[in-house]
């Protein structure tokens, strides 16, 4: 019985993605191991994170082979979180400076604030 229903893909594809995820994880671990700092560190962390997440969702979770309707239904709503992040970041920044102004603050806390 040669049925082709469901998600049928060659095993080799999964092994390749598995390997890629290992490489990407090693690279993000290296970011910490070599003590990269500042913008370089943050952008590398985010790039590796997004690449890993993309591989898992598109290949392991088979999103790449689904129809556009379900791709949009599942992947677009989480974008709302970006709004929450920006609102909370603005608020957090305000609270941080309010604490510095009203409670007095050590110089290194201010220096370490992005």
């Amino acid at each position, binding site marked *: *019985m040669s*049925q082709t*229903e*469901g*998600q*049928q*893909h060659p*095993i080799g594809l*999964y*092994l390749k*993605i*598995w390997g890629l*995820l*290992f490489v990407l*994880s090693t690279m*993000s*671990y290296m*970011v*910490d*191991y070599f*003590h990269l700092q500042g913008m370089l*560190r*943050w952008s590398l*962390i*985010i790039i*590796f*994170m997004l690449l*890993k*997440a993309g591989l*898992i*969702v598109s*290949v*392991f*979770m*088979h999103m790449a082979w*689904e*129809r556009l*309707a*379900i791709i949009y*239904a*599942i992947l677009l*709503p*989480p974008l709302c*979180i970006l709004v*929450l*992040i920006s609102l*909370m*970041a603005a*608020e*957090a920044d305000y*609270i*941080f400076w309010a*604490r*510095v102004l009203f*409670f007095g*603050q050590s110089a*290194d*806390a201010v220096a*370490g*604030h992005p």
Partner: protein
Amino acid sequence: MAMNTGLEPALSDSGGWKQLSGDWRGDKEAFKGVPWGKAMMWIFLLSDTFIFSCFLVGYMSVRMTTTDPWPVPSEVFALTIAGESIPLILIAIMTFILISSSGTMAMAVNFGYRRDRRKTAALMVMTALFGASFVGMQAFEWSKLIEEGVRPWGNPMGAAQFGASFFMITGFHGLHVSIGVIYLLIVAFKVARGDYERKGNYQIVEIAGLYWHFVDLVWVFIFAFFYLW
């Protein structure tokens, strides 16, 4: 009262809970080619995405607002192996274990659709074992931190909010992994017993796989934002 025109499926007319579950389940496909079980799992995962996002955004907020220095995760999670302190090594091992479990799970789904139930069940049990060892390492990590005096309300290394964020985020993720292990073992048992042989429908393996890959996906974000940042 609406007349039964005979066009609607009988389930929808019986009212109450039967009607409710019938409307959601009645073999209707909101997304073409996506069985309802898979669509429901995706919708559940979407809601779970929001829960974990709220935790991570909350963590971002407390980390940005605190005026005390944040403990350096690289040092907090360092392990001394053979007299040498290696930064973040346990977390790295946990990451590789979870990725490997995702790999075996993807292969289990594949063998399921090929109706090779022995290999499917074996790969699922392997996935569950990887998951269980992940939870074990997390328990080790928790007890190590608790021993060092990290509490949800404070810790000796710096900002008090570190403990609350750590226990909340990794705890909730660990709970997901634990539930996933049980879920996978149940499905693996049913696959091995041949419950799905008659219909030849192994979609349940893919649905369980979606949950498991999601747990791995969440860890990718926790690893990046909590441990590496």
